């Protein structure tokens, strides 16, 4: 077991974790603002990957898929919020959860009808194929690209939330939507945008993940469970928590795959159980919210 192999695997974990960060952030942003857990989040990740594949095949360029798919699926997310989720505000917190679960079902079956049950390959764009020598080992360029894209998105998100008027409204609205309404902010519109943003992030995660694996209608199921684990470990509604826990889980999965491959899918759940025992509100969660 040499250092180079470990470094490569570690880096794989970071790339995997970066995808999880996108998905978990989307989940966390929606929850933090709307108080809704989107159980269709995994399905929308899958829809994002298929949309990316579809656009990339149509235009012959991966870049169009990467750009168009998250925007289109994000817009679709806004439609979902407007038509299906908005009637449920003020009702039991379980209702949006149940509804989005049913929606996930419908989305998976729709994709099966449109694209078939079998998985499809998603070729790595030729510009990003191959490996790069970073001095400590050879790393697949595509994975470096994924980590770079996620880093840029995180920076943009941070700037958007901290430095813009919209971000100010979002942060204030997460704390007290009632006061925001009194102050004359159209909270319904903000929630619509936030839901679209969260869905767009998971769709972007789907497109980015697709070339590292293949796309299939069931690909969202494990991702949903992974995103939940990340959110529970990081602390629900905590954006920093989602980032730290996402990377942590990605690295944990990847390193376990190196040393004990049969434990790779199990290790993150064990980590979650451990966090629940020691710190039920999550690493970055506030006590009392759990």
């Amino acid at each position: 077991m040499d250092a180079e192999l470990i470094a490569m695997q570690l880096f794989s974990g970071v790339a995997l974790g970066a995808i999880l960060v996108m998905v978990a952030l989307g989940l966390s942003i929606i929850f933090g603002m709307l108080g809704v857990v989107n159980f269709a989040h995994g399905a929308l990740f899958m829809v994002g990957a298929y949309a990316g594949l579809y656009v990339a095949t149509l235009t012959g360029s991966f870049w169009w898929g990467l750009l168009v798919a998250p925007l289109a699926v994000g817009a679709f997310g806004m439609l979902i919020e407007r038509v299906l989720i908005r009637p449920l505000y003020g009702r039991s917190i379980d209702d949006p959860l149940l509804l989005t679960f049913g929606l996930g079902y419908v989305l998976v079956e729709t994709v099966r009808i449109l694209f078939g049950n079998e998985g499809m390959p998603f070729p790595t764009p030729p510009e990003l194929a191959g490996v790069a020598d970073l001095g400590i080992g050879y790393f697949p360029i595509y994975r470096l690209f994924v980590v770079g894209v996620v880093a840029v998105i995180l920076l943009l998100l941070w700037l958007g939330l901290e430095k813009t008027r919209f971000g100010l409204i979002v942060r204030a609205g997460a704390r007290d939507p009632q006061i925001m309404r009194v102050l004359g902010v159209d909270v319904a519109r903000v929630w619509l945008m936030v839901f679209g943003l969260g869905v767009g992030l998971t769709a972007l995660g789907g497109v980015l993940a697709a070339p590292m694996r293949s796309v299939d209608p069931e690909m969202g199921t494990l991702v949903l469970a992974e995103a939940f684990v990340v959110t529970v470990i990081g602390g629900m509604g905590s954006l920093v928590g989602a980032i730290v826990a996402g990377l942590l889980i990605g690295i944990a999965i990847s390193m376990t795959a190196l040393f004990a491959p049969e434990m790779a899918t199990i290790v993150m759940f064990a980590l979650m159980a451990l966090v629940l025992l020691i710190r039920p509100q999550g690493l970055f969660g506030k006590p009392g919210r759990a």
Partner: protein
Amino acid sequence: MTASVHSVAEVMAGPAGRRGWRERLARWRVPLSVLVLCLLPWVLPSQALAVNVLIYGLLAVGYNLLFGYTGMLSFGHAAFFGAGAYATGIGIGQFGLPWFAAIGYGMLAGGALAFVVGLLAIRTRGIYFSMVTLALAQLVYYTALQATSITGGENGLRGFTLARIDLFGWSIDFLDPVKKYYVLMVFAALALWFVSRILNSPFGAVIEAIRENETRARACGYDVERSKVMSFTLSGLVCALAGALFALHLAIVPLDILGIQTSGMIVMMTLLGGAGSFFGPFVGALAFLLMEDVVSLWTPHWQIVVGTVFILFVLFLPKGIWGTLLAWRAGR
């Protein structure tokens, strides 16, 4: 003056009369359920559908104890259903247990798993609880997938077919669908009686108090955490029995039984029928399976219809079929 007194008396008599009707229904709920279960194979289009309604109905009854009566939305009950099924199959096929002991073993395994998962999951509340139960059920799924030597992995568990079952000197042909149905039904009837007793007990009142207002229940001095774990375990126990019956019925345990789809199906059935009502889960299981049967005649993608119907129910009929009927009858 007398007229107004008279009308007041009438007003008082009205709701009391209706309450009487509901109380009578509640008192006879177990015999009525068993009667319906007895008739099921003769009124439904196929034997296979009847036995599925029996097993999934019981599964939903177990789940309803937690979701409908305690107000905890678990998305991981496939784990206990599956654990009951796997342990029963393993008990017969690998340990050579007699069939009734294997059912007990299945319930023990499922109940113990529910106890452990419950202890962990109740450390979180509300939405977190749903997420944690889903994640822990996925852990069980992947563990079963990896433990190929015990569970058969992706191929599922096989090799425990029962041709005949013996009890107290009787020998029953277990390959005869009607006889098999009634053997399994005895266990479902016992479980229904058990659940009904739980709901009528002081403990039943405590879990409903937790559903209505957890803080107030705690302030009244009830041990909320312990009651939640108890409710979770009992619910898992009933679901494990449903799993044991499933294993005896099919003589194979597919890995899918542990999947997220199964957990979701349990939730859907319970909600479609009416969470928090005694008959609701069976109505829901029947509605779900009938829908699956009918729709899959003209498309393999029946889930798209089921999912859409489920969404419409959440939006417009959150009390489910039976719950809405009850509310409509009470509101007349």
